[in-house]
């Protein structure tokens, strides 16, 4: 019975006539981007975009608003960081370990929270993530307020040195594409169709015989795992994991990225992440840094009042209305 994203689903999907052309152009742009833009900025964007896509799998496609996704981002980062510092494993295994740890945490969160719906679900996830925050604040291995510093990027497969920013960029791009691919496949699988059915009308899905809680739980675990993968990669990029990633502000930021880009659309969270990372970079440092939360608040209010489809959703809606033949915004 969740009408949250029903109106926002008329999202951007590549025209069916030339899906491969569009994808190829985007991929080419991603491969060439570091020649034009500072790689660390791009890597931060890709990590947060993956984080937002993972979050959107739950909000946009099942209608579950988690206010605790910072817990998964930070768990991925801390576990990967700890292993990279202390065990000397290779980065791809480190990221996998961080992803697995977040999946496990997502399973625990999900077990506790999928019983509750809507607003309660949001409050339960927020409270659980605050529990995780206090754990990381006090646990000896996280470095508390100072953060976990000096995480080595290591050698990919033991061969390629990732301390070079360009090599690291292509590693991050590969991780992003894998994560994005998993989400894309999930959404367009029979499993994803059932998730959408639950979002549209939960009692109907129950009466059709689906075990709705199991489906929600699995969606939660996939979302948490990919959020952890984003956090693990982000920790390698910055060679640092800090409490900022575990704070509820981060949970709010990922909601904003998804809302701004267009929840329930495949590319919306990517666009939302790009806009927010750009704003954060623009305002970082100096006096303007103080304004960032005020601006985020205004974007939130504006989006909810007047812009609920988000950038990508509005674009898809516009194209669908004016150029139905273009194939944009075809209802699912």
């Amino acid at each position, binding site marked *: 019975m*969740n*009408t*949250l994203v029903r109106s926002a689903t008329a999202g951007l999907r590549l025209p069916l006539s030339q899906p491969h052309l569009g994808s190829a152009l985007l991929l080419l742009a991603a491969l060439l981007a570091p020649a034009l833009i500072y790689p660390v900025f791009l890597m931060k964007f890709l990590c947060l975009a993956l984080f937002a896509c993972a979050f959107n799998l739950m909000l946009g496609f099942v209608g579950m*608003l988690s206010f605790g996704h910072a817990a998964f981002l930070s768990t991925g980062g801390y576990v990967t960081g700890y292993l990279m510092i202390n065990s000397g494993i290779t980065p791809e295994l480190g990221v996998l370990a961080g992803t697995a740890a977040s999946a496990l945490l997502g399973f625990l969160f999900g077990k*506790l*929270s999928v*019983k*509750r719906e*809507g*607003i*309660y679900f*949001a*409050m*339960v996830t*927020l*409270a*659980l993530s*605050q*529990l995780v925050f*206090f*754990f990381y604040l*006090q646990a000896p291995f996280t470095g508390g307020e100072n953060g976990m510093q000096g995480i080595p990027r290591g050698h990919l497969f033991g061969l390629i040195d990732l301390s070079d920013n360009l090599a690291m960029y292509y590693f991050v791009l590969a991780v992003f594409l894998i994560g994005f691919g998993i989400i894309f496949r999930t959404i367009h699988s029979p499993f994803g169709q059932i998730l959408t059915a639950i979002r549209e009308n939960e009692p109907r899905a129950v009466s059709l015989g689906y075990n709705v809680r199991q489906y929600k739980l699995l969606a939660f675990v996939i979302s948490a795992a990919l959020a952890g993968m984003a956090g693990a990669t982000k920790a390698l990029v910055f060679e640092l994991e800090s409490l900022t990633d575990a704070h*509820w502000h981060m949970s*709010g930021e990922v*909601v904003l990225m998804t*809302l701004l880009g267009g929840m329930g659309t495949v590319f919306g969270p990517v666009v939302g992440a790009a806009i927010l990372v750009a704003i954060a970079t623009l305002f970082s440092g100096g006096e303007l840094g*103080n*304004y*960032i*939360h*005020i601006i*985020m*608040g*205004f*974007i*939130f*209010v504006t*989006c*909810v*009042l007047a812009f*609920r489809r988000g950038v990508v959703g509005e674009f898809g809606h516009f194209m669908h209305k004016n150029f139905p033949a273009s194939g944009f915004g075809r209802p699912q």
Partner: protein
Amino acid sequence: MTTILGINVFALLGQLLVGLINGSFYALLALGLAIIFGLLRIINFAQGALYMLGAFLAWLGLQQLGLNYWLALVLVPLAVGAIGILMERTLIRPIAGQDHLYSLLLTFGVALILQGAFNHWFGSSGQSYPIPDALKGGNNLGFMYLPTYRGWIILVSLVVCLATWWTIEKTRLGAYLRAGTENPQLLQGFGVNVPVMISLTFGFGVGLAGLAGVLAAPVYSVSADMGANLLIVVFAIVVIGGMGSIGGAILTGLAMGVIEGLTKYFYPQASSTVIFMVMVLVLLFKPAGLFGKEA
């Protein structure tokens, strides 16, 4: 005779008192959330920011206008309530037909703006508000020393909570409110002006947060972030108590404050997390909450 069974009675009672004071704030904030939820079916994420606003308005009133504590105690909740009514009219009402999650996100945005603005104007270091002369000092109760102001907080909170509970459960006005919770259309059909009632209810719920802010100003430092972390704890308390009853919100708020105080004495490392752990236990064994009615 200060220790019984290895327990330092004075330290324990001291922590219990601190717990009761925290519980008083939890109860006031949870009560406000419960009242608003009852009629509007939304969770006001800005409740913590409005609590902070109440404390700041009291502090600003004293600094700029020489407004004393007693006037602030009356005027500030009214001002915060008026801001709440304005918020309900201009922001929340236009999205009344939408999914309730949108109103959660909207009030979250309002909270970010308020906190960001006060952080910008006053910095992150706290301001201090003097305890009013009449409430300075304390009483020796024989077994412990009770600072007068702390007793005052508990007294005001209990009186306000009980009066609110009595009004809602026992009076005609409360009957309208409960009817509006059950079926607003039908109540409107009986000639009650439901939109005005919704505005006033929202204003009252938010005003409780403002009152809590004024009460908190002399004991906690007044800073932009004072409401944010408190609100997450209150959310956990709301989940523990469930949204079924007004009395449930008050009792759970006070009880969780006391449990937190006990934890501070017996195992201080867990004092910041104990309420969340209680929430986990409640979710495992009674998912609807202790006083909850919804499934």
